[in-house]
């Protein structure tokens, strides 16, 4: 039932061509090479270390792995991670 309703919602959003990050609460990750990443639509930080940053989204978690990771700025809307990003994983 739940899966069905989410599929319907996705189909509706798709057909109306609405932005998915707003309507579905999806995380938006913008990567520039492997040095910088901008993330929008998240809930908060779960873990922050130099090798790994774990973020909580609305529907999933995303984990940035790499070396010398740091947060350039952090606000309610968006954040910027810089460092050497080796891998982005969705959990």
């Amino acid at each position, binding site marked *: 039932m739940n899966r069905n309703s989410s599929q319907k919602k996705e189909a509706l959003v798709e057909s109306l061509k609405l932005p998915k990050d707003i309507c579905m609460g999806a995380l938006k990750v913008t990567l520039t090479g492997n040095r910088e990443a901008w993330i929008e639509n998240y809930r*908060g930080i779960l873990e*922050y270390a130099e090798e790994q940053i774990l973020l909580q989204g609305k529907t999933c978690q995303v984990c940035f792995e790499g070396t010398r990771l740091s947060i350039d700025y*952090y*606000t309610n809307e968006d954040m910027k991670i810089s460092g050497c990003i080796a891998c982005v994983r969705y959990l």
Partner: protein
Amino acid sequence: MIEFFKYMKGYLRIRVWGFSPERFMNLCSNKGILLWDIVREGDVYYMCINLKGFRALRPIVRKTGTKVAILEKYGLPFFLPKLLKRKVFVAGLLLAVTFWTVSSRYVWNIELTGNYQVTNDMFDSFLQEQHVAIGMRRNALDIKELEKEIRRQFPQVTWASVRLTGTKLRIDMKENDTPAVEERENAGTEGSDLVAEYDGVIVSMIVRSGVPQVSVGDTVEAGTVMVDGKIPIYNDDATVREYRYVDSDADIVMEYVCTFSDSLPFDYVKKEYTGRVKKKNYLRVGNHELRLPQERPFLVYDSLIRESRPLLFEKLSVPVFWGTCTHREYQNVEYEYTPQEAESELNKKLISFIASLEEKGVQIIEKNVKIDISGDSWAISSEFLVHGPAGKSAATAKPESGETQEDAQ
């Protein structure tokens, strides 16, 4: 730009450690507190936070069980109280600002460009009449009126523009550089002849008005009338009824001899610097010079003054100058010209004479130069055979009254 606003509002570098720093950051972002440059070192987090956000941290810190310590403070809110403690500095700053604001309301420099016929002195006295002077208030200046007055006062000025840039009054003008055409009316003119300026032979002759009295190949003497300004009008019986007077106009080229001679004394005095110099600095404000009193530096000396205006004052030009005055000692040493030196000196004079001839449109056909000793000096004498314009205007000789009638009879 963002950095500037951050600086203006003030921010802190803080250290956060304890139970859950991640939660601390999440709560901060939820409350709209901006955090940046977040770095983790071991269990300690370092980050920047703005001053307003820092004041709202207490409940977050209590809730998350973290500890916060200030590492450094940045920005104007922290800098200003420190600055205000230095009273003399602030007073100096205020005084400087006041000085510049007040002095920028006056005209401190007048720059004049584009004037050739109107000399600077003429213009200075004109400006004095108009009560425009260095040190006057900027708002007392009526630019439009001044422009009009320049054109009214100097008819040769065809265009004038007055601009006030900073404290500098720039006056640009354009003068009418085409020669003023004298309106000659043939009717009623007294008439003029063209007479020979030199003794010589006429090489070419183009007459535009008047009656030619000589022809190409003729030998004429200085003063001979070459083109007559009175045109005879004949009766049917070939007698002169009357004369019509015109200003004769012709291009006449003559071949004539011109000479040049000059002399140079045997010895001359040359300054020889001994190498001893004394430098003095001075400051000039307007026409007042501030310098240390000084005795006569050397027995015989000349002075080299190098003056400069501070660069900042270029736009806001207050009449303050500084400079150095270098006194250089020298001796007057007498030398004698060697024949080579004398020759080259005299040749220089000759070349400048030839250049002046060429400027007049004279063509040199033959030249004969002799450098010799005459008496107690070197002398140069030269003869040139030249082709050049030779004709000056002179009033037409009028026939005595009744002459025409007699002729007619």
